């Protein structure tokens, strides 16, 4: 309940600033361009595909790449959304309003998480309108489409959780943004080093799990990876906030 109060205010605040609107506009514009070029490409190779039995359909060739591209853009913008959540409150000393109210630290962190997550779901909704528009001319593989949505939602929540943790550590919003961007990028590409197939690095890499889901393979391993990721970083954020109170 308290989390919802905080989330409501955070979300409102987000829309009071031009940042939220700019992000919505820019992502939509870039992804629409990518979507169109993908559709174009699909149309150009469609005649060749007809002859091949079991050829990839429109969901594989248009929808999945669209969400794949969206993930990279999110990698860039989520740090900007999360950077202010905690570090700004600490800088402006408004955090003491929350600390002296009858609210637990986890409620504060979850409230902030929810606010950003709801905003990201709005982005996801507007992105998925593009593949849905294909329904007017053809058919989508609904299972794969839903798997893509699940992948996106989990990915967004994970980026969000890490961003909030960085915001809890950093004393300045920009530092938080740079740190979370760096961490996310590293986690994205970390399996490059394990070209010979280092199982650990492959497991750590976000991209591996994301791509599995994007291909329509919903396995508990991947889902659990994301859930662990989210819960882990949120609990670390709570610990970090608690540390403010205990500071030596």
């Amino acid at each position: 309940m308290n989390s919802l109060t905080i989330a409501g205010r955070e979300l409102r605040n987000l829309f009071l600033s031009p940042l939220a609107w700019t992000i919505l506009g820019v992502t939509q514009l870039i992804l629409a361009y990518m979507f169109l070029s993908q559709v174009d490409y699909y149309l150009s190779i469609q005649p060749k595909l007809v002859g091949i039995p079991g050829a990839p359909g429109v969901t594989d060739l248009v929808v999945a790449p669209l969400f794949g591209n969206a993930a990279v853009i999110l990698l860039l913008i989520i740090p900007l959304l999360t950077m202010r959540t905690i570090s700004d409150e600490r800088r402006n000393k408004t955090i003491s309003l929350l600390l002296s109210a009858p609210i637990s630290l986890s409620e504060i962190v979850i409230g902030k998480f929810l606010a950003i997550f709801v905003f990201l779901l709005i982005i996801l909704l507007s992105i998925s309108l593009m593949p849905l528009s294909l329904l007017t001319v053809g058919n989508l593989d609904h299972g794969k489409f839903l798997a893509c949505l699940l992948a996106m939602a989990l990915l967004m929540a994970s980026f969000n959780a890490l961003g909030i943790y960085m915001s809890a550590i950093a004393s300045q919003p920009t530092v938080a943004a740079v740190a979370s961007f760096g961490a996310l990028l590293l986690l994205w590409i970390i399996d490059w080093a394990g070209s010979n197939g280092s199982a650990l690095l492959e497991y750590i890499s976000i991209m591996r799990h994301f791509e599995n889901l994007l291909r329509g393979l919903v396995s508990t391993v991947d889902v659990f990876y994301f859930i662990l990721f989210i819960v882990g970083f949120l609990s670390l954020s709570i610990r970090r906030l608690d540390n403010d109170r205990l500071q030596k």
Partner: protein
Amino acid sequence: MNTLIEVNNLTRQFGDHCAVDDVSFSLNKGEVLGFLGPNGAGKSTTMKMICGNLSPTAGEIKINGYDILDQPKLAKAELGFLPEIPPLYSDLTVDEFLSYCAKLHGLRKKAIKQSVIRGKLKCGLSDVGNRLIANLSKGYQQRVGIAQAILHNPSVIILDEPTVGLDPIQILEIRELIRELGKEHSVILSTHILPEVQHSCSRVQIIHRGKLVLNESIDGLSQRMTSSSLLVRFGEPPELDLIQAIEHVTGIEALEQQQYRISHHQGSNISEHIAILAVNQQWGLLELIPEKHDMEHIFLSITQDPSNHE
């Protein structure tokens, strides 16, 4: 009378530096406690600990019987806190901000509107409800901070330097407000402006280098402040033996230009005797001034007493 705040053996260390050292006190309902001390004495640290913003190294804090560490939600529900820097979201309007605070304190929907209106009325904010906090003057922002602290009708209100940065008229208004709040709530007020304490508090505590060095009711303090010495000036040199012989006189100190400080027992009045004596002896009495110790004196004597230094 019920005790609303109980602080026992509170200690807070930052590394090697001991900011608050073994402080204990309690506050009853309807009391306004003035918390005094020089800069860096540990006032804000103590207040932050009472409000759960900082956890103590040792000791316990109970708000209305609830331990702030064991039952933080129940304890914090009884608290209203205005930190040194008012925690305001500058991109909200006063109304929005206050209803958000009311929600955070778990007020019900119906109660929120009423409490916001009441809070604004008490702090003189009724006219600025629709304005953005960022556009308000410092004084009004401070008032929003106070409104935020009293909104949910807490039994304990803690104000950290509430009159900093206000103009004299606003200071008077805030003092009036604090005195009024003191009737229904318990108030802790930290400041380093001494007249403020005399004006609005019923009890005074002075903290110095983390230690509580004075805990006195305002009556007790004014007792301390009554004069125990006279300043006299004569035209002719007086015979000091005669003055010494007056009952209750404990000492005479010669100052410059025929001026003397005559100390006497507290609670006795010797000015009349001195006047009669001076007239009879034709010393040419020019001045007779009972010396008054003000708050500053007491404050300075306590905080500069070498025995209080480590």
